[in-house]
């Protein structure tokens, strides 16, 4: 029991990390689009749990809300509507393997270099890092709000304008047909 109390956070982290990675693998290996969508949902929810474990409750809940509740429902809707069947006869590899392996290795090297170069503090010390504003512990919602609307207001607004442009573009493309 003491072991569970001391390492509960770590156990949960590895559990949800494994679920996230496993779900992501299933998305690209399963042949039925419906199952792929379920696996993607599993990954999204596991990532939300990882956010919660890092005391980033706002980000975690928004992850569930936006990806789990909005985007995945749309995916499922489209998959069910067009009624895709299993894709057994499609070839799994399309002759791009060498290129794909090269790109994957490059990415792996990049992440590896980052991983080696980063100094990781012991986790209990920065437990409240994601819920602190100006050195005062308030809550993750307030911390996210302050960094979005005070510290990084201009980049945030620019990103919003880009998204608006993309949305208008989608509407225009949809009207033409």
């Amino acid at each position: 029991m003491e072991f569970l109390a001391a390492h509960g956070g770590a156990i949960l982290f590895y559990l949800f990390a494994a679920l996230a990675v496993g779900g992501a693998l299933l998305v690209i290996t399963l042949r039925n689009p419906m199952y792929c969508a379920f696996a993607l949902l599993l990954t999204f929810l596991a990532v939300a749990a990882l956010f919660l474990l890092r005391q980033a409750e706002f980000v975690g809940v928004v992850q569930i809300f936006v990806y789990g509740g909005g985007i995945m429902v749309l995916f499922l809707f489209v998959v069910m509507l067009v009624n895709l069947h299993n894709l057994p006869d499609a070839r799994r590899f399309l002759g791009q393997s060498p290129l794909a392996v090269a790109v994957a290795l490059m990415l792996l090297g990049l992440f590896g270099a980052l991983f080696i170069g980063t100094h990781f503090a012991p986790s209990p010390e920065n437990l409240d890092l994601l819920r602190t504003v100006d050195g005062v512990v308030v809550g993750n919602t307030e911390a996210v709000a302050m960094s979005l609307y005070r510290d990084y207001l201009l980049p945030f607004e620019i990103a919003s304008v880009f998204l608006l442009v993309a949305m208008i573009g989608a509407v225009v493309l949809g009207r033409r047909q």
Partner: protein
Amino acid sequence: MPGLLQWLDEFAGPTLFEFAVSPTLKILALLFLFVLPLISYIVLAERKILGYIQARVGPNRVGPWGLLQPIADVVKLLLKEDVIPVRAVRWAFVLAPCLVVAPAFVIFSVIPFGPPSTGEGAPNWFITDVNTGLLLVIALATIGVYGLIIGGWASNNKFSLMGGLRSAAQMISYEVPQGFSVVVPILLAGTLSLVGIVQAQEGHQLFGLLPRWFVFHPTGIFAFFVYMVAGIAESNRNPFDLPEAETELVAGFHTEYSGMRFALFFLGEYANMIVVSAIAVTLFFGGWLPPFDFLGMAFLPMGLGGVLWFVTKLFAFLFVYIWFRGTFPRYRFDQLMDLGWKWLIPMALILVVLTALLKLLFPS
């Protein structure tokens, strides 16, 4: 009981007790002592009230005034044969009812049924008060739709599939106005915590004639209207029960379900009704606050007066739900989409901007 708690405390150690054992016990107590009995008697109340609306008597055979009818219903559902169609996707078919019920039950852990502890042995009348309370409620409510979609798809039946598709479209359309309409109380209260939102509604306005509940705020009343319409649509109730429209789709997404699995879908729908009503009470009708201080029943111990007020308001909303079912005809699907996208979403957007403006101009 205290002895058992102490034993659990010593067995689990302080951290585990505080974060795992104690919340689990509270959740189980809330579910089995409040939510499940409430749901079974709402079903009876619904049949009775619908009966009176249609000039019938309603169930009156089992027990005095039919009061034991829910028990008979539960026993019947438990004993019924549980059929799984041969061509169904078995694991998804079994999983779907649980996916409907679980998120609805989780939401009960953040709903404040009464005031926070004031010391002197009074408990907190909620399981937890999280920093993102309201957002968590909406996020979990949207997760509940997967049960309907997966159930409809896994049944391998045209009617079920159509029901599942309809519920997906309906959920996507109505969670947008619902999300915007709850921004209004968030703006007025300045917090996402459900306890904080209720506490922000304390006091009176208009020379003490009106409580400062957000429903009596000039934009709050319209936000309440939008929230309630979207909430009824989200819980698949009349007049928005298109995913299970009997006249067109047999029984919609749960056509192939029988026995206890069907009962779980039923349970999820009623749990969602209670959740939508409880959130409406919390956001717009002052939660556990009495309308006037002299009605507060402060003589009751442990803040029970507040709990009584909350439950009274909750029952009023549940009655309105049943009343709607007895009076309104069902919407057509294109009318449903029109209402959501052309009326509720623009209205909710305007309300958010107006509320922000009002708050900027009159900071008090």
